[in-house]
């Protein structure tokens, strides 16, 4: 009975502030479209991290996802992004 339409996502404003805070130059700005797309990117990043960690936990027969499962999948995750 999950409400599929209500997909959890990052707020455009949060992403915008976050990314601009990391820019080296003051003059660099982020377009509205780019902010929305980056919100998607980040959502996918988190989803991938989560699902790969879950699969790792599953392959080790654990019923809870613990930090070592995340640590094991982290290198490949970073390489893939």
């Amino acid at each position, binding site marked *: 009975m*999950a409400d599929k339409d209500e997909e*959890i*996502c*990052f*707020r455009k404003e*949060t*992403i915008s*502030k*976050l*990314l*601009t*805070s*990391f*820019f*080296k*130059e003051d*003059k*660099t*700005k*982020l*377009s509205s*479209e*780019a902010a*929305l*797309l*980056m919100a*998607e*990117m*980040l*959502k*996918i*990043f*988190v*989803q991938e*991290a*989560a*699902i790969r*960690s*879950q699969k790792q*936990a*599953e392959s080790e027969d654990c*019923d*809870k*996802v*613990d*930090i070592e*499962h*995340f*640590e094991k999948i*982290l290198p490949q995750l*970073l*390489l*893939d*992004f």
Partner: protein
Amino acid sequence: MSAAGSRPQRLKAAVHFTTGRICQKMGEDHRKEFSRQTVAAIAETAFRQCDIFAKDLEAFARHAKRSMVSAEDVKLVARRSNALSVYIQNKSEELAQEQKKKNAAKKKSKDAEESRE
């Protein structure tokens, strides 16, 4: 002024919040919960990844002699994975379509307004 913590802290908290929600839903869907430590680690990693994304985006924009980061720069950031690349490309087209519709709707109402005068 509320002492809700410094800017970066608030942004980190916002990332952590949404990360937590994504992990919770996934935990429910697959019946395998995430430990709090794991959620925190995923959130921290995502936060740090944004730094890398931002620097790349800025470099791509600068390379194209722009000061505004555009969708094209985002597509470059997504280049490493084919599936991701395609997904972002499609999202970008989706957004462009929506923007077109909005502009058409705006123009329609503007024309209607002008014809009334």
